[in-house]
């Protein structure tokens, strides 16, 4: 109904007036006064309008902080008839966006290329459809970011060097929340700074890939390789009940392959995926075969993308009432359970008849492989079990091996964090008959070396070298 200003008058449903009196001060004609009755629905005292001298100026409406408070209306005598639902006329409906799936584009992979670990991960990311990178320089992960800075502008993608890791992770929250694949590279101290953001991402179900090239700690530590963020990535992803799939590559090839997998999983679960490498793995140059496809990402229906179809969407992790937040946690926990069932990955090296089992991840697993090779040549039945997912820990595969094993040796560049994962997951899986667990541990940026592992086994086996 077309209304000229003259036949409109201010009106307010008393239930939607908070009695703030801003409108009273705004009216130059004293048309509004404070009421004298408390509204039983709100416990507040709404204003009373006397519109005899009203000039239809609308200043009172501009003064009202309530969206459905004071407004100009043609109805003047029956407040109760003014239902907020009718303010904007008919309720606006609009089509909801449908999810656009990503597409696989076949490519000719050509010959293997020779690249360093961080580069392999960057290349995996662009092949997986990532065109948005946010990061903060930190050794030994920076080369990955530098390659992205070179590649992305040529692909009309976005590379932003953020003011800090805190800003970087929150930029990922924005782009991931908009439904697009995005990533960052960081290293241990930077990863610590990102934990708040990671917790928000998990709570809000925002996908993103975070590569942590772990270095020596605690504190500033040094820039040499360590694996001491394992407890963080498995059990300490910020506050709250949080888990992410954590992938642990061991070679440049896996840096590429697992980065591509990470992008798939992060959208599959609407949950960030963490890739952990060690400083060595970031820096090592090796042979990498490209896949025979690349990904053009789609756009999920839940994205906050900034168009009509996605307008009603919300990315948030806040649930002010306890039952709502409990429901969110139950949903997330259910998702974690699905990951535990579906995403355990591991690799076995000479495990079929192994009696001694080395367990190691990342570069230390390569050192352990070297040891297995040497010890096998001496006739010692040793094998290597290598978790590829640090979380979920591949306990199903490990449990199967346990009965044949008489000695476990955990090889790690940390103070037993991998051993804790092994013990915890076996215990949860109900495997209580454990062989003795021994270890080779180095810290401070020193990785366990092949000869140290060999010596350890020799000592355990009573072999005189």
């Amino acid at each position, binding site marked *: 109904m077309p209304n000229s200003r003259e036949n409109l008058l201010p009106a307010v449903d008393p*239930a*939607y007036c*908070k009695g703030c*009196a*801003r409108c009273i*001060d705004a009216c130059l004609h004293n048309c509004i006064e404070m009421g004298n009755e408390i509204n039983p*629905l*709100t416990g507040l005292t709404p204003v009373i309008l006397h519109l005899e001298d009203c000039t239809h100026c609308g200043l009172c409406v*501009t*003064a009202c*902080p309530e*969206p*459905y408070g004071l407004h100009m209306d043609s109805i003047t005598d029956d407040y109760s008839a003014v239902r*907020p639902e009718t303010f904007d006329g008919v309720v606006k409906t609009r089509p909801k966006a449908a999810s656009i799936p990503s597409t696989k*584009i076949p490519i*000719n992979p*050509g010959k*293997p*290329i*020779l690249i360093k670990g961080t580069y392999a991960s960057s290349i995996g990311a*662009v092949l997986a459809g990532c065109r948005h990178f946010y990061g903060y320089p930190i050794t*030994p992960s920076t080369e990955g970011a530098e390659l992205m800075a070179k*590649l992305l502008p040529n*692909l009309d993608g*976005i590379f932003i060097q953020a*003011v800090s890791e*805190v*800003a*970087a992770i*929150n*930029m*990922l*929250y*924005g*782009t*991931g929340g*908009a*439904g*697009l694949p*995005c990533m960052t590279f960081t290293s241990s101290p930077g990863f610590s700074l990102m934990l708040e953001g990671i917790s928000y991402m998990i709570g809000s179900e925002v996908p993103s890939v975070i590569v942590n090239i772990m270095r020596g700690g605690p504190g500033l530590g040094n820039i*040499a390789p360590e694996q001491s963020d394992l407890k963080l990535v498995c059990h300490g992803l910020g506050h709250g009940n949080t888990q992410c799939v954590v992938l642990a590559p061991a070679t440049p090839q896996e840096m590429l392959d697992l980065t591509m997998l990470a992008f798939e999983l992060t959208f599959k679960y609407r949950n960030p995926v963490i890739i952990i490498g060690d400083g*060595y793995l970031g820096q*090592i*140059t*090796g042979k990498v075969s490209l896949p025979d496809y*690349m990904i053009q990402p789609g756009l999920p229906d839940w994205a*906050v*993308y*900034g*168009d009509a179809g996605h307008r*009603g*969407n*919300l990315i*948030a992790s*806040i649930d002010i009432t306890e039952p709502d937040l409990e429901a969110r946690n139950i949903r997330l926990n259910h998702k974690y359970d699905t990951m535990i069932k579906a995403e355990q990955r591991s690799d076995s090296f000479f495990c079929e008849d192994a009696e001694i089992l080395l367990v190691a991840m990342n570069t230390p697993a*390569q*050192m352990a492989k*070297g040891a297995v*090779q040497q010890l096998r040549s001496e006739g010692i039945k040793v094998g290597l079990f290598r978790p590829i997912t640090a979380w979920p820990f591949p306990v199903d595969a490990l449990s199967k091996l346990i009965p044949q094993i008489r000695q476990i040796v955990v090889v790690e560049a940390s103070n037993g964090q991998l051993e804790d994962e092994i013990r915890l997951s076996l215990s949860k899986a109900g495997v209580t008959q454990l062989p003795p667990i021994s270890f080779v541990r180095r810290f401070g940026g020193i990785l366990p*070396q092949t000869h140290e592992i060999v010596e350890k086994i020799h000592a355990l086996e009573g072999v005189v070298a």
Partner: protein
Amino acid sequence: MSAFYNTFERHSHGEGLKGHSTHYCPGCGHGLAHKFLAESIDELGIQDRTIAISPVGCSVFLYYYMDVGNSQAAHGRAPAVAIGHKMANPNSIVVSYQGDGDLASIGLAEIISAAQMGLPISVIFVNNAIYGMTGGQMAPTTLKGMKTMTSPYGRNENMGSPLKMAELIAQMDSPIYVERVALFDSKQRIRAKKAIKKALQIQVENKGFSFVEVLAECPTHLHLSPTEAQDWVKNSMLPVFPLGVKKDVEPTHIFSFEKPSFESGKLLALIGATAEDVPKFANSFPKHIDPLDISLKLAGSGGDGAQTAALLITRTAINEGFDSTHIPSYGPESRGGTSYADVHIAEMEVLSPSAPDPHILIAFNQPSMDKFAPKVRENGIIIGDSTVIHSMPAIDPTVKVVMVPMSAIATELGKIMVKNVVALGALQAATGLFPEQSFLTAIQQGLKDKKELFPLNVEAFHRGMEAALKSEKI
């Protein structure tokens, strides 16, 4: 008309009055800032494109009300989240809505860097001089002498002065529009609305970063009636936070963003993928050095080219169809000091990539020789630069030492940088690791866009070979 939801379904599931009223206290300035934002969005016809970033603070529930795309950010991080959204879809109109604790305290780094980055986002900063949500604590914008829960005796000298964000942002180069407005009377409200609309309009036109500071009332924590709170803002805040346009300039350029490319040919070219066959020259794995896995260490000072030489060996091995890895020493020690590289070559797969006891050592200077030569394993080979290395540490008696005047040869050739290629020639002649042609092919590949340097490199390589064959003893 405005961009508010018809019913606030997210406010206590839209039940009862909550479906149509805000959670704000009576007279709170947030309601007005919301209203002016909602009206501006509607008037500019950008409701579908708008994404509102809710902060942490009393306005955390902005998303209850705005019928736009909504994203709720961690405390202080809204500008970073806004940038993430804007870059994902440059056609979206992104509004970072923040209070004083969020923007001027915990989120200072994010707002300052976002402003200086200057990307087209719009920031609405609601300054009511106090923390609302947490219950009336001191804000960075709290006035001097003002009593709050955490400045119970008044904000004193030890607590600093109120932070003037609009002025701070305006003096930066990149923002193009900064204004401070208020809500305490009709004139201010009309100005506030205009400013918010302008901030959005600037983004619609891809002009850049805009910032509107809104002086707002928090009657609850000022312990004043809403009317008194309006007077307080006018009389007490205004002298500290003067109103007005702080910056309004034409942008130096209009932002435009292309759609990301997913053209496979372009991508493959960029990452250096090639389908070209590289010729092989070796008949078999150099088993005379080790049947399975050969390790090398190359060590020198920063400019010696140890890393490049190491990479060339790795490339040579991979061209020949073997596995190979290279790990550099990195970080501070690689800037200046010693630089060393571990290389492995394996017939099948490199297992352990480090080389604590290499088969072969190439030492470019005396410290490297002293440090690593004793670690070379039995029957190993050491190749050293005799121009600069004049003594040998104690080494395994079975280890062969080949000394070549690498620096002298390179200097003679007019380019000291080819010292490492001289070393590779010596390596070839002394070890027979791979045929000469294998190395030269890898060197040629490595030179990519500096092909004119190839003949010089070939010569350096040959000189290295010759010199190794008539190795000088030290």
